[in-house]
């Protein structure tokens, strides 16, 4: 049973000038529809915007009486601005949990790669593998960095890159992924979330090293459940799958990176 419900905002914190960390009470949503880290919720952002906004689950927990769920989002436009303005105590209309998460085992050891606002779901993956995984995260600059302290707690190792070198390595995450995969052959898979060019590069590196790679894709959405077919993702075999239902996580080898 899929659900849509009014969820109370338990807390709202600004992680930096643009990014909000928001905890929601979501009834039994986690108990009934959790499939793994990497799923998303579809959030109604006010009455005057028709479309919901898809936001990845950062972390979530089965709790009594209400499961809780954390999302992290950046203010980009009207919808995320509206959401960022909601104070704790207010409610928002949420559909979830939607889509398929990363295919992973709690006992696995993964190389988690996050770029910018793609980092939050990686925290969920890290928690799931409790301390065994490695995270490689990239940001535009130091000011944009988020969730580093939490990742440190949940990962064996955290490597950081920034486009401008203001924090960690100067450059993009794929360089760090290459370095890590060449040094450590024991990752079960690379799991990545971030902008498409980053995902493409990470997927290429993983393929070079023969490591399986799963990527979380973004696309503009309507229904969020697989009915309207707007959120198409081009596949290598020429077919078009749907990010909301078949994804958002796909095997990187299935994706048509040239589309």
């Amino acid at each position, binding site marked *: 049973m899929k659900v*849509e419900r009014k969820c109370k905002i338990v807390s709202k914190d600004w992680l930096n000038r643009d990014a909000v960390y928001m905890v929601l009470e979501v009834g039994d949503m986690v108990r009934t529809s959790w499939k793994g880290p990497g799923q998303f919720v579809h959030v109604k952002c006010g009455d005057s915007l*028709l479309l919901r906004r898809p936001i990845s689950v950062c972390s979530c927990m089965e709790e009594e009486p209400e499961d809780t769920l954390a999302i992290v989002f950046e203010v980009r436009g009207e919808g995320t601005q509206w959401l960022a303005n909601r104070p704790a105590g207010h409610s928002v209309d949420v559909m979830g949990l939607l889509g398929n998460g990363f295919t992973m085992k709690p006992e696995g050891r993964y190389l988690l790669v996050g770029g910018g606002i793609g980092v939050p779901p990686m925290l969920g993956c890290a928690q799931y593998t409790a301390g065994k995984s490695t995270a490689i995260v990239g940001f535009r600059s130091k000011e944009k960095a988020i969730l580093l302290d939490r990742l440190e707690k949940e990962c064996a190792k955290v490597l950081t890159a920034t486009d401008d070198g203001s924090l960690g390595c100067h450059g993009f995450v794929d360089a760090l992924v290459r370095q890590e995969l060449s040094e450590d052959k024991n990752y079960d898979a690379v799991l990545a979330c971030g902008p498409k060019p980053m995902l493409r590069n990470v997927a290429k590196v993983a393929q070079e090293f023969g490591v399986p790679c799963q990527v979380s894709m973004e696309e503009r959405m*309507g229904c969020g459940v697989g*009915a309207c077919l707007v959120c*198409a993702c081009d596949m290598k075999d*020429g077919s078009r799958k749907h990010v909301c239902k078949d994804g958002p996580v796909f095997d990187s080898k299935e994706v048509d990176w040239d589309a």
Partner: protein
Amino acid sequence: MPNVDMSVTLAGVNLKNPVVVASGTFGFGREYNQFYDLGELGGICAKGLTLHRREGNPAPRIAETPMGILNSVGLQNPGVDAFIEEELPFLRQFDTKVIANISGNTPEEYGVMCEKLSGAGVDMIEVNISCPNVKAGGLAYGTRPELAAEVTKVAKAHAGKTPVMVKLSPNVTDITEIAKAVADAGADALSLINTLRGMRIDVNTGRPILKMNTGGLSGPAVLPVAVRMVWEVSCALPGMPILGMGGVSKGEDAAQLMLAGASAVAVGTALFADPYAPISVRDGLEQIAARKGLSKVSELTGGVKPW
């Protein structure tokens, strides 16, 4: 709640209530069945089918506009045979009417699909001559009376006893002209409106949001255009059954379309904001009918009193 008989008849097909879901917004029902029993609905217009499987247009396929959306899905679907084998049996489990929606590149394709679907026992066939997202065929049929009539004739000839409803495009100078041509050609019902063509540009990048540049506008923004067109068509063709749609998101919207002449209404875009929209439209409509003291919701149909 006072007792209002919610059943209506559309082209001889009895719907338990006048609220149908609009083609292309509800897939083949599987997804929304996770929210509620599909038997709650008056009927289901399934996602538009073509003779062969189609992957549709590249993404982005959706853009948001003031109280509306643009889409450019482009008829992604598994093809009529896969529908009949894999989807129809699923839909048949529920106590609701199944309306197949078809688009063809040629009149012959419409004929082949009608034959297959009629044989497979769908309750009604909705002939889409108005999809603005397909280059070949589609829109042209919907904007030229003689072509619309030809497609209708071929569809009727191959649909056997299955009623044929023709779906009209609003992107025309005079919708009554097309409606009349289609009616004369034997359509059992008309459905309107399909989407209005529109565009949105990302001013930061200078790129249209949709990869196809333009797409079809739907949602509350178009409701007044839908009401006007349903009214015009119902005045021009008294007695012709009409499935009204375009921007319905609450009972009042549905009541407007029915007063304008629709026998039933379809809910589409409203689903994206609220998966339960068809249910609340139905309940809202029932309340309005009750408040007006009607014993049957069908008494709303054509009840507008023009000045």
